[in-house]
């Protein structure tokens, strides 16, 4: 009985599982390569842009903060000098 059930399942099992409803011409090698490469491109492009902009913004903020700290130190030092020696 088991052998019969296994044989029926094997016979009825689909040979090709077509997961992509748009890939009507899958099988033509060049076409499937085009589908795969363009899918990868369309997936990677927005992620790459978002990551790129995030890194650029992070670096810009870091640079601006470093610049602001230098400015703050200069202002404080100028105020101290004025407090000690009075205005020129």
């Amino acid at each position, binding site marked *: 009985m088991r052998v019969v059930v296994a044989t029926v399942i094997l016979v009825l099992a689909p040979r090709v599982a077509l997961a992509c409803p748009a890939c009507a011409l899958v099988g033509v090698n060049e076409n499937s390569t085009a589908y795969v490469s363009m899918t990868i*491109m369309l997936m990677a492009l927005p992620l790459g842009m978002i990551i790129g902009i995030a890194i650029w913004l992070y670096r*810009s903020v870091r640079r601006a903060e470093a610049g602001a700290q230098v400015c703050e130190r200069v202002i404080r030092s100028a105020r101290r000098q004025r407090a000690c020696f009075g205005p020129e």
Partner: protein
Amino acid sequence: MEATLPALPALPARRREVVPNSVLGMLLFVGAEVMFFAGLISAFTITQAGAKPGTWRLPSEPVLPATATAFNTAALVASGLLLVWANRQYRRNPASAAQTVLLAWMLGAIFVVLQGREWIGLLSQGLTIRSSTLGSFFYVIVGAHGLHAVGALIGLGVAWWRLRQGTLSPGFLLGAQTFWYFVVGVWPVIYGRVYF
């Protein structure tokens, strides 16, 4: 008697503009435009790969002039590089960048004019938007890029005019530059994919 320092008032917390709003807005716009062109290129590639023999380009249609377009491409890339140089000049001395921006604008305009001339030639030789699949894709993709190039040229022209008048804000120049870099950067991809 020891002199005591008066307590320093805390520095007011100020909001600093790290990235100009114009650049951030332009980056978001350019991101959407990159995806627009990626969709077009993707459709082009998949349709070309799946086209039955003889249906992609009709035998009576001309071959796309890749060699002649290489010159246009060189002009556009040179324009982008000049704008990078103009940006450096602007940081040192804003007035000195006007000539370089104008030169970059002129090279961009040359690109648009030569592309227009190429279109006239192709139309007269029988490659139209309806003649074949290649014709449809060619005019849609290259036409969309041409429209973007014209828009970017207008922005760059306004930037140059304001630079001459001394009323240009760094944010406006950076926004116009970002858009132009997009136009320059996306073209080699279109050229490499569509013309060959």
